[in-house]
């Protein structure tokens, strides 16, 4: 039963993801991305991680995607911008991706997961948030702190790349430099 649901969610996610990149309208793409992310949230539920599922919905579907749609609407990014960017290589690309799928699938099925599930078994995961909290603030505290820097730099980057220089905007008027 769980397997069945997994495959439903997974296939929907993959199809939605393909649609995201093949849509010619940014709004459509965004909607399919939401669909895709919702499927991932559902898979988290199947994995006994309701907390992650909720975070996924809140942050990605709720915040990020709404912001994204908002930006798209404000900037009026439309159909024109998404016209044919593939440089006539969509078919080779598809063939290649298919080949990649076959090879990776072959390797995955010929290999096996040799190691038994680790500490996070069903019983431990019952206290979902506690497990995550403990992991993040004990074992993974160092990378967790580095992630905070990562977010900071992303924030700075957004400001740097969007904000024009103060004053006369001197830089803009210069001829294309080197």
């Amino acid at each position, binding site marked *: 039963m769980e397997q069945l649901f997994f495959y439903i969610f997974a296939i929907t996610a993959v199809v939605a993801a393909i649609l995201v990149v093949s849509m010619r309208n940014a709004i459509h793409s965004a909607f399919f991305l939401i669909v895709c992310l919702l499927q991932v949230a559902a898979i988290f539920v199947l994995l006994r991680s309701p907390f992650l599922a909720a975070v996924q919905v809140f942050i990605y579907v709720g915040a990020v995607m709404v912001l994204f749609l908002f930006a798209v609407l404000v900037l009026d990014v439309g159909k024109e911008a998404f016209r044919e960017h593939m440089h006539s290589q969509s078919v080779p690309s598809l063939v290649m991706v298919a080949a990649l799928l076959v090879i990776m699938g072959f390797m995955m099925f010929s*290999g096996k997961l040799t190691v*038994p599930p680790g500490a996070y078994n069903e019983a431990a995961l019952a206290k979902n948030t506690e497990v995550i909290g403990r992991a993040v603030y004990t074992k993974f505290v*160092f990378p967790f702190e580095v992630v905070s820097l990562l977010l900071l730099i992303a924030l700075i980057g957004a400001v740097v790349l969007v904000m024009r220089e103060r*004053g006369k905007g001197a*830089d803009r008027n210069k001829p294309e430099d080197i």
Partner: protein
Amino acid sequence: MIPLSSLNISFASIMPEMLLTGLALLVLVLDLFIREEKSVLGYVSVIGLIALIPVSARTIEAKASFGGMVMADEFAAYFNVIFIIAAIFTILISMDYLKKMNVRRGEYYHIILFSTVGMMVMASANDLVTLYVGLELMAMSFYILVAYRIASARSVEGGLKYFVLGALSSGILLYGISFTYGASGSTNLSEIARQLGGFQNPFLILGIVLITVGFGFKVAAFPFHVWTPDVYEGAPTPVTALLSIGSKAASFAAFMRVFMVAFPAFHAQWGEILWMLSAATMIFGSVVAIAQKNIVRMLAYSSIAHAGIIMMGLLVYNDLGAGGVLYYLLVYAFMNMGAFAIVALFRNDRIGESISDYSGLASRRPVLSFLMALFLLSLAGIPPTGGFAAKFFVFSAAIDARYYWLAAIGVVTTAISLFFYAKVIFYMYMREPDGEAVMPESGVLYNVVLLVTAFGTVFLGIYPTPFIDMAIKAVKPLLM
């Protein structure tokens, strides 16, 4: 539950990262208060970085801390010094660049510092998770730095390309990490090696291949190099220098630690992949570089070729080879930085970046052209420069480990590479400029950078012994 005591929380082990983060935050805050004279931020950063060198060069104990996430050993210390040196030079040549480009914004400096933090995290990462966040921190900083001149289409284009392809490669790297986790049940490097034993598992091989590809992108190995010329060309030149030195060194640090600590039992498999990549990268980089008329693109392909040689040192898997990688990267930091500093000078003064723009430099600026010739000859591996000693160690390590063909390819491509480096020297010394060509003006800071890099290049060439000894000592624990 994991008891806190078993985590071995040791702040001493992450002291360089912490201090550097503090410095970056200080510069960030200062940026708000200093409105006009932004170069003050540069001085603060440089002084802070210099003060940091002794701290990072020192290692307290080579024991995994923070729950096995961090390993502040000599290996990490060696790389930290390389990163800091690269960052210092980059900031020094950036100050001239920002002034001449009339950019009055201070974010530049602390982004460089944050990227250096990312590199340090990568070098000391003992866990795939730490490694990944460090890599992303570094990469995110570089996406911004490459596109820093938002008014220039080339810069933004480069940033965008780097971002999209970087995201793709990060995805592939993460995918590989997932497979590795699936096959071993852990993300900790030493734990992975323990769990895996020598068991052959296609699942794991898939993980290894994908991780290789992820790192291959960062070090610009063929065929994952495609971004390099465009991004190098588009980015502000000091950023290009840092990208070609710091980013490459950090990626090699992580590359080495992952493969030597986590997958030593699978050397036959990854050795074969790396053999192929290394050979292809050396050949491709040096052959295509011949065609380049733009010096930045030429140096981009040259850096690809160098990546191939460094990879050879990693794959031969003995102390001379792995130590050779560390030494090579140290030398590379000096010689490549010197070459890029001169290229940056030419671009800053809007003289040009075509190789023919260097015509007649020798008669107008004899010292500058001599230094350029020195850096290029070092890159080409001519004694008595550091480039020669570095290549010598890597090649002799390859021969020691019986990789004759690879060493032969390395020697041949080195011979080819002399051709395009000599082309620039030829233009500088044997051509007269067309009419009244403008010659670049270097300031005091610039001269300091050029002289220090030149000194380093020569010194490492004529007296490499202590540095190579340190490098070999640093990699010894990884080879166990």
